[in-house]
C-alpha cells in the first residue's frame, strides 16, 4: 500500500496524505514535472487528463482538461504555480474558472503542497490540500464522483473479461 497516513481536518478544510514509494526523489518529482507522465495518473480511468500548458516556474500556469469516454463530460483545471523547489517541493493553487472558461478574480480555491523527501531507503511524498471554501472542495470531489463511477465500471469490465475468457 502506497498511502501510509491520512489526516483530515474538516474545520480547516485540509487533508494531508503521506505516501511512500520505492523510487528515487528525482523519479517521484518527474511524475509532477513531466506533463506526459502527469497526465497518465491525474485523471481517473476513462477520463484521461490532457495537460495543455505546463510552465513549472513560480507564477507559471499549468492547465489541463479531462474528458469522458462520450466526449461530452469535460472538466477543466488551471493551477498557478506558487513555489517550485525541484525536486523536493511544489506548491500550486487552483484558480477560479468563470463560466466562460477564463480565470476569475484570482481568489484561490485550493492550495496543494507537495513535499518529497528521502525516508530510509524509500521516498516519501506528503501532499497537503487546503480548500478555502466548501465550493472548492465540492468541485474537486465532483471528479471523484466520476472516479467512483468509472473505477466501478473498470472493475466490472475486468470481471466480465475474466468470466468470458
Amino acid at each position, binding site marked *: 500500500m*502506497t*498511502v501510509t497516513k*491520512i489526516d*483530515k*481536518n*474538516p*474545520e480547516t*478544510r485540509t*487533508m494531508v*496524505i503521506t*505516501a511512500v*514509494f520505492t*523510487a*528515487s526523489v528525482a*523519479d*517521484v518529482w*518527474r*511524475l509532477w514535472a*513531466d506533463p*506526459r*507522465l502527469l497526465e*497518465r*495518473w*491525474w485523471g*481517473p480511468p476513462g477520463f484521461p487528463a490532457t495537460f495543455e500548458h505546463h510552465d513549472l516556474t513560480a507564477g507559471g500556469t499549468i492547465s489541463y482538461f479531462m474528458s469522458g469516454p462520450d466526449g461530452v463530460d469535460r472538466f477543466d483545471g488551471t493551477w498557478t504555480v506558487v513555489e517550485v523547489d525541484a525536486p523536493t517541493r511544489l506548491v500550486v493553487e487552483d484558480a477560479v474558472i468563470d463560466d466562460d472558461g477564463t480565470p476569475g478574480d484570482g481568489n484561490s480555491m485550493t492550495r496543494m503542497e507537495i513535499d518529497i523527501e528521502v525516508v530510509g531507503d524509500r521516498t516519501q511524498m506528503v*501532499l497537503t*490540500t487546503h480548500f478555502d471554501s*466548501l465550493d472548492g*472542495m*465540492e468541485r*474537486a*470531489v465532483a*471528479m*471523484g*464522483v466520476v*472516479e*467512483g463511477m468509472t*473505477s466501478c465500471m473498470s472493475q466490472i469490465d475486468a470481471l466480465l473479461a475474466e468470466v468470458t475468457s
Partner: protein
Amino acid sequence: MTSCDNRSGDRLTGAPLTSPAKGVFYNHMVVESLEHEDRIDRLFFALSDRTRRDIVTQSLDRERSVSDLGRLYPISLTAVQKHVEVLVDAGLVSKHRRGREQLVRGEVDQLHRAHELLDRLETVWRARLERFEDVLDDAMGKECR
C-alpha cells in the same frame, strides 16, 4: 426598540459568556478541560433561546442575511444581530459579508459537509496515488522524453 427587544438584550448580557481566567496554577490538561467546559457552556446557553435555535435551523439549509432573519421574528434587527453574535461565539453559525449584506450560515451543517467531502476526496486521492505508483514503476529508469 420594543420591550421584547430589551428583554432579549438583557438575557443576552446576563449570560456567562466570559472565559474563566487561565490561572498559572492550572496545568495544561486542566486549562484544556476548562476551555472545553467553557465551549459547552456557550453552546448550551446559545441553544437555550427559542429564537436562536430557530436561527440555526433557518441558516442550516441555506445562507440567510441578517435582514432576512429579521423579517422572521417580531424583534429588531439589533436583537437579531445580538442573537447571531451569541451563535457565532458558540460556533453554531458563521458570519460572512457579501457586499453590504451580512450572511449567516449554519456551521454544524458546514462541518458535516466538510467531513463528507474530505472522505470522498480521500477516495479520489487513494485511487490517484495507486495510479501514481503504477506510472512511477513504469517510468523509473527511463529517460525523460
